[in-house]
């Protein structure tokens, strides 16, 4: 025998432990957790910038926020602190966007299109009357309102959504 008993046992033992640890290391690296819980989740790009962010907001809502690395485009979806959900597709400064949201005491669905911080089109179901009639309004660049379908109350004091 080229290797005696004790030495052979030691070699096998060391190799066994090494094999065990290597295998477990691979297992941990590729393991799939059944459930992960976190207060906040960030997915970062190769440059370290945050591309996706899931978290609770300061106002008590929560949402998911996504942006490109240059922050020129944003997608945000979430629930405001008052419980109303929203979906926003916008530029980095949120001056140009399409916004789907729910608003008003009757939880009316609304779509808003804004460019250069000026609302140009609003589409949805009425927020005042119980019938919640559909409406579509558009605004010219100088702010003139045109009711295409139904009527939309756009008072800035938001009296129409209370």
């Amino acid at each position: 025998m080229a290797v005696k008993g004790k030495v052979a046992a030691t070699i096998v033992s060391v190799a066994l432990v090494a094999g065990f640890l290597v295998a477990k290391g691979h297992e941990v690296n590729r393991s799939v957790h059944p459930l992960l819980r976190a207060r906040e989740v960030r997915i970062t790009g190769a440059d370290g910038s945050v591309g996706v962010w899931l978290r609770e907001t300061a106002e008590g809502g929560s949402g998911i926020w996504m942006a490109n690395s240059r922050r020129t485009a944003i997608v945000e979806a979430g629930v405001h602190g008052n419980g109303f959900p929203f979906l926003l597709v916008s530029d980095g400064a949120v001056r140009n966007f399409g916004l789907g949201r729910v608003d008003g005491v009757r939880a009316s669905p609304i779509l808003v299109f804004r460019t250069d911080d000026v609302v140009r089109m609003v589409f949805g179901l009425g927020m005042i009357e119980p019938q919640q009639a559909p409406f579509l309004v558009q605004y010219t660049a100088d702010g003139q309102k045109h009711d295409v379908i139904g009527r939309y109350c756009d008072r800035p004091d938001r009296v129409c959504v209370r």
Partner: protein
Amino acid sequence: MEKLRSHLCVIGLSAVGMVLGHWLAAHLTWPAFRAEAQSAPTSRASVLSTHALEVVGADGRRQIAMGTSGEGSPGIWIFDRNGKVRLSIGLYGDNNASVVLNDENEQAVQIFRTVGAAGAPVLVMKSQGRDRIVMGLEGTSQDPFLILYGADGARQTVFGRH
């Protein structure tokens, strides 16, 4: 010759040990995974795999859930303070995509989705569970349509066919 036999013996014994180690690793499990990220708020990993992810608020309440729906497709659900799903993003069982905004009773109010094998984009706005506005591209022809429904269910085709 004796030296060569000795080396071969060490290699052979090491191989046996490694195989045994791998076998043991495959049959012995670590304590069950239930990762709680609170204790490591800035943990980083290049890839983190999980069947389900929850983002919880400061009070421990579930705010966002990511996982697999009852239909076996992926989804994200965002909850309000009462634990109701107010916004969901995901895929239906037929692989069509959807974004759904709900009212406080978890009834769908605004739905952006694709429909059918052609994945035609459709927007639906609802009131009290009934469709009131349906617009999008018609499945076969992919022509645009806009249909309004009165509170009494009366249908008004603004343009197109659906």
